[in-house]
């Protein structure tokens, strides 16, 4: 399929997003992958603002905006309503890492346990960016946020593994640095029944402190340095994307500092913090290897 055929307008020009917004990139890719028959639930976050001012809406999908913690629950009601009305609609929850790892985790976990039939997309920018960049459970060790000016102590909450432990049919990670990989995963997810979880790395120029024109590059660096894995787990079987295959061996990984040094949020990390982050990457891949 040529790229020109992928122009489902999931997002219309003139959004309220900051320039260079990675969430908008991801939203456009969702449109390219899932086509028209989609209904969305957007929980509190940047995307509540990005849609712009009613009665206009910058998203090309019908959206139920909803309170922070209620996305997975509302989606559970929504797909069942479509089913009762004999409508073939893909229900998608769109949430940030705060909505996913923190305030919304109970309802996410509940919906996953019930194997509700929808796609949950977590756009992970590793902090509460909509309220100005406060730390979330998904903020990595050492990162400076407005509430951790000394750098966060403790690692990122491992949502990937937490969701895998729910034994849902489809779990994947993706990065806006690699659109084709994300689009392919979304297309495959669309054809799976039951609960599907995809966590998409969306590097935020204003929270991570880099030039907004570099959003795509930073999203690639995260994958190249193996900080962010591109994997897909279907029915318990792990598949590592081509872009991440080099991460399986420590020797072939690109040095983590190539990813960290382009971001202002790591400007104060010590040698020990750096080692801590390297250990995080090692354990991440050890765990992925142990599953395959």
């Amino acid at each position: 399929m040529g790229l020109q055929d992928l122009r489902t307008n999931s997002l219309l020009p003139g959004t309220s997003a900051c320039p260079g917004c990675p969430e908008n990139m991801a939203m456009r890719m969702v449109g390219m992958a899932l086509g028209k028959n989609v209904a969305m639930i957007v929980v509190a976050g940047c995307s509540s603002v990005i849609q712009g001012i009613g009665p206009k809406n910058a998203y090309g999908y019908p959206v139920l905006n909803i309170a922070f913690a209620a996305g997975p629950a509302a989606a559970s009601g929504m797909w069942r309503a479509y089913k009762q009305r004999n409508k073939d609609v893909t229900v998608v929850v769109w949430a940030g890492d705060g909505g996913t790892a923190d305030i919304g985790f109970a309802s996410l976990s509940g919906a996953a346990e019930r194997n509700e039939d929808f796609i949950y997309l977590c756009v992970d920018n590793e902090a509460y960016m909509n309220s100005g960049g406060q730390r979330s459970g998904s903020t990595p060790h050492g990162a400076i946020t407005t509430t951790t000016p000394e750098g966060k102590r403790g690692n990122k909450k491992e949502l990937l593994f937490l969701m895998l432990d729910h034994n849902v049919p489809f779990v994947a990670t993706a990065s806006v640095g690699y659109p084709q990989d994300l689009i392919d995963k979304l297309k495959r997810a669309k054809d799976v029944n039951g609960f599907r979880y995809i966590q998409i790395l969306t590097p935020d120029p204003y929270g991570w402190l880099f030039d907004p024109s570099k959003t795509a590059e930073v999203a690639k660096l995260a994958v190249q340095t193996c900080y962010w894995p591109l994997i897909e787990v279907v029915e318990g079987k792990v598949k590592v994307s081509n872009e991440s295959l080099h991460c399986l061996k420590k020797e072939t990984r690109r040095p983590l500092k190539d990813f960290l040094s382009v971001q202002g949020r790591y400007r104060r990390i010590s040698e020990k913090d750096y080692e801590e982050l390297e250990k995080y990457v090692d354990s991440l891949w050890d765990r992925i290897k142990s599953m395959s």
Partner: protein
Amino acid sequence: MSSLSFEYQFFPVSHPAEGAGGKTGNWRVVKPIVSERCIACNACFLWCPEGTIQVRGKRAEVNYEYCKGCGVCANVCPVKAISMVSET
């Protein structure tokens, strides 16, 4: 029931539309200019956060009404066909 007036009824409902966040072209300080080096590869289309650049025919075209001038397109262009030029 048709005789009753429902004029007081108002619902928080919206519809897809361009410019829901305003005429965002005004946000720009630099603007992307596409040169003849463009090979119509679609990389800019794929990554543009606003959907304001599309390949028509053999060259990418920018929708300046809404382009915010973030410069992502210039960076992802494999042949450096897009340059960011000051608005002033």
